């Protein structure tokens, strides 16, 4: 009998052990077994909302109910319907010496987020922290328009490896802050519009800068693909452009190679090619640049004259003015460049040009990169010719224009208070515990 009692005691001990083990070994709730990683979901949601720095702006506009309502809509829309959230903003300020984080505001879509929540923090900086510069606008009051030829119906040549579009976009990013208005000429019809003296979107035509991103080719509107512009393989068109540059005091920028060597219009020359297999182009030849310079100098139309370049290869280095501009504007193209289409110094006397600025130092009476101005007391047209070999570095174009116009840059005031806030997004799952 005693053994039976002993066994019953053992059973009682085992039962106690089982009850104790069951009591302490609490299994997680089914929701916690394989949960969504709410921490990562929270973090990626904050990143996504701040992809355009909109969340950063809203964080510093907590008094603006409209902004915060829209933020709440965006937050609700971006998270799955069963996810509960609480977004809280804290100001980071250690000036008081006691607390680093100070509660500012919060938004939530539920009173309680349940038992299973996770949280991510995201620190945002005020725009006050960012070091900004405000550039002076070139030609403010007298023009200040930058035209970038980004014609979809014209092909480029010697812009190998790039599309005119990508060059145009880079130039836009580099130079648009320095101009009152930047206009992308999207097609040759728009080019025809400004050539006829009409602005495209209310900009000032006079004193504008025109950058041709098509390299050695110049876009030509279809309406100009006829006589008299078609004379001498469209050299007349280049002469006409020279006249326009003179009359509107434009600055024409040729970003690479032999200026005005081709004209391009993919519709008008759809069956013609530039002798190198690129259709939609017509080779004008060396007469194009002669005609342009004659037009710029108000001379009668002709293509006769000495070629503007001897097409020899030369190593060129940045001029002192360009080097200073490099540091001033933060543009750093290679100091040494290869030129194969440097312009002869003879054109200065022949076409009454002056040196506006040398981007690259002259090499034995040839100018690899120079901005020429026409006129003595009053400037009537300018011409930036970068006779560098392909492929173009558009920073050289930007450097040339900035070296010449030299707009000032004003550093914004740096303020160090109320500059950082922390956004905390806590997520939970709706339904059950």
């Amino acid at each position: 009998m005693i053994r039976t009692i002993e066994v019953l005691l053992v059973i009682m001990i085992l039962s106690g052990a089982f009850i104790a083990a069951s009591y302490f070994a609490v299994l997680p709730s089914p929701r916690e077994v394989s949960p969504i990683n709410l921490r990562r979901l929270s973090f990626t949601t904050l990143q996504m909302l701040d992809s355009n720095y909109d969340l950063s702006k809203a964080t510093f506009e907590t008094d603006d109910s409209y902004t915060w309502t829209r933020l709440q809509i965006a937050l609700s829309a971006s998270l799955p319907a069963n996810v509960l959230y609480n977004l809280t903003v804290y100001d980071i300020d250690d000036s008081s010496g006691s607390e680093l984080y100070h509660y500012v505001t919060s938004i939530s879509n539920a009173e309680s987020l349940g038992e299973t929540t996770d949280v991510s923090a995201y620190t945002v900086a005020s725009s006050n922290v960012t070091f900004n510069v405000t550039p002076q606008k070139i030609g403010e009051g007298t023009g200040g328009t930058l035209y970038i030829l980004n014609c979809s119906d014209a092909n480029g040549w010697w812009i190998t490896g790039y599309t005119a579009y990508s060059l145009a976009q880079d130039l836009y990013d580099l130079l648009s802050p320095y101009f009152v208005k930047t206009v992308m000429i999207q097609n040759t019809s728009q080019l025809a519009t400004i050539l006829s003296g009409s602005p495209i979107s209310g900009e000032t035509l006079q004193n504008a800068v025109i950058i041709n991103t098509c390299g050695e080719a110049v876009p030509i509107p279809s309406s100009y693909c006829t006589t008299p512009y078609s004379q001498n393989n469209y050299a007349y068109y280049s002469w006409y452009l020279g006249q326009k540059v003179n009359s509107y005091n434009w600055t024409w920028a040729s970003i690479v190679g032999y200026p005005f060597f081709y004209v391009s219009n993919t519709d008008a020359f759809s069956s013609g090619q530039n002798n190198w297999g690129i259709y939609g182009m017509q080779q004008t030849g060396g007469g194009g640049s002669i005609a342009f310079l004659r037009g710029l100098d108000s001379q009668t139309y002709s293509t006769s004259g000495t070629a503007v370049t001897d097409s020899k290869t030369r190593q060129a280095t940045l001029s002192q003015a360009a080097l200073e501009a490099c540091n001033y504007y933060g543009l750093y193209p290679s100091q040494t460049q290869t030129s194969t289409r440097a312009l002869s110094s003879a054109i200065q006397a022949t076409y009454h040009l002056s040196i506006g600025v040398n981007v690259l130092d002259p090499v034995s009476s040839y100018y690899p990169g120079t901005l020429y101005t026409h006129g003595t007391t009053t400037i009537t047209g300018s011409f930036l010719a970068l006779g560098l070999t392909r492929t173009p570095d558009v920073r050289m174009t930007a450097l040339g224009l900035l070296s010449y116009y030299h707009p000032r840059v004003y550093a914004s005031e740096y303020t160090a208070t109320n500059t950082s806030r922390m956004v905390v997004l806590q997520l939970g799952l709706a339904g059950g515990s």
Partner: protein
Amino acid sequence: MASASLDHMLALTIFIASLLIFIAFFTQSMQTAIEYQQHNSMSTKTSDLLDTVLLNPGLPMYWGQNDTEPVGFGLQDPEFNEYSLSSFSPLRLSVGTQPSVHYAAKNAYYNNFTAGSGGCLLTPIDDGNTKSVSYQLVAELLGINGTYGFQLTLTPTVDIEIEKTSTGSPLQFSVNAYGSGFVLANANVTYSLIVVNQDGNQYPSWSIISSKTSTDAAGSLQLSFPGINGETRSYALVVYSYLYGLKGMGYYVHVPASFTKTVVPIVDSFQNHAIRLAHSDTVGAVTTFPVSELSYNTSYAIVTEEYTLRQVNLDPTNATAKITNDLNISKTYKTLTLPANNPGILIVAYKDTLSGQVGIELVPWGLGSLAFPVSLGGNSKGYDWVTTDIRQVTIGGIAYQATLNLWRIEGHGGSS
């Protein structure tokens, strides 16, 4: 003596019986705990695996713009960091959302990327030159082949539904923008209507009407275009809706029902960014009679920061051409070269040279360009525990949700 033996026997019996019962009790608890632990570790594995896919660009880094198979799998945009995905890598996945399409001219099958009629892109599963990245290969590259099964899904966070609400003129649309958990109320909207011109020109042209507006408190808005007949004209409406970093897009393409021919875009090479535009009668079931000839005109549009469409230079070779359904007459396809690194939309307007009817097709170059969804992976049916994790990502500026479902294959025979 007898009673002592009886006592011993009884005690032993009770002891053994109780021991067995308690072993069963403890085993059950331990099994449950082990299973919970396994499920929990699978959840961690899912999260890690999803981050592995989304936070590395793969190897080579630009495999999305190659024709060869990658040796490392990842979808991150190599030019960005964090959760920004490549526009091109997802296009190389062998997706299973739509049935594959046979293309007789190459005797090959193609993945069908689409999010509705009027916008599609066929990518080669294996045409001898370009190979899609299969589920099997991805599993091998992730090191889970034979161990785990998975399904990776990229879904636009914002769903923009466009419905034509008018008959005849004016052309009217109802647009509804939904987020994954809430309507996109009071959101900014930019739209572009591309209307194919009906004129006597050999190659069709189009006009674009763009404007800005916003959704109402219900995430809806009505658009009206006076003077455009919604039935007889061919047009495409592209709508972008955005609120903070949450951006979505939707499109609607209309071609008169009587015009059944179309141009089918087929990727020739990701590396050379070449797209073949083929006559619809030569893709899928081939039809050579009656003879049909389509003259098409194309343009490449990228989305500006203001969410308008900016048309950019396109290689002029074959940008405008004719295709037929009969190889004996002329070419059944033409090949275009698209810009290398800029995701965008190829607009293709086409015209039947006999009937003069015109149509339009939108071709995405980059997954986010037309907010196509993608799903790669196996079928979890029969596996009793599938873990899921989710991340917010952007593809070409469009907000997506990346979801990974994971289940264990090794040592599991399935439960159904």
